[in-house]
């Protein structure tokens, strides 16, 4: 027997298997794009621009353990290529857990005009990036 001490919400937040009425519904974790552009704080913007462009126009700034430090979006990626990522990134961006329902993410991303959102585990490790067009498509038939 294994006693999962952190609790039920944290279990779901880690993207671990769950049962019940919401188990089969799309969520942020299973819709997130896993293959995303990442970079470290000491790279230059110029070094990551093409990488980000190839993966949806966003780059997540992580450390060696893939803990999210920041994010580079159009505004930062379109700036000077000589700038160091640490100086221009949006620090401590809002991140969301994999178990959050796709329908809720779609509603909030639309309401807040957010094109992408980093999805992380509860301890900040990058899972992927959820793009609004993907989550909107997945929930377009939901009532």
């Amino acid at each position: 027997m294994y006693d999962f001490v952190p609790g039920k919400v944290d279990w779901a937040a880690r993207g671990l298997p769950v049962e019940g009425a919401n188990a089969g519904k799309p969520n942020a974790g299973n819709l997130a794009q896993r293959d995303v552009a990442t970079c470290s704080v000491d790279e230059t913007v110029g070094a990551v621009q093409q990488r980000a462009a190839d993966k949806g126009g966003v780059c997540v700034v992580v450390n060696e353990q893939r803990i999210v430090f920041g994010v580079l979006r159009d505004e930062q990626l379109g700036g000077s290529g000589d700038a160091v990522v640490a100086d221009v990134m949006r620090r401590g961006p809002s991140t969301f857990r994999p178990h959050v329902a796709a329908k809720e993410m779609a509603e909030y991303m639309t309401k807040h005009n957010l094109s992408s959102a980093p999805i992380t585990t509860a301890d900040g490790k990058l899972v992927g990036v959820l793009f609004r067009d993907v989550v909107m498509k997945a929930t377009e038939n939901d009532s």
Partner: protein
Amino acid sequence: MKALVCEGCGRSVDVCAFCDSEDCNEVICYRCVLYELGEARPPEPHTED
């Protein structure tokens, strides 16, 4: 600078906790985001023994 207030609970915030924007028209605080997205449960009253 415009004072931002959470639409859900009225708490003052520096930026919207959902979109990180200072110009958001639907400002929400971190605690309300957690409740709204089911990442945390609202506080429940303590029961008496």
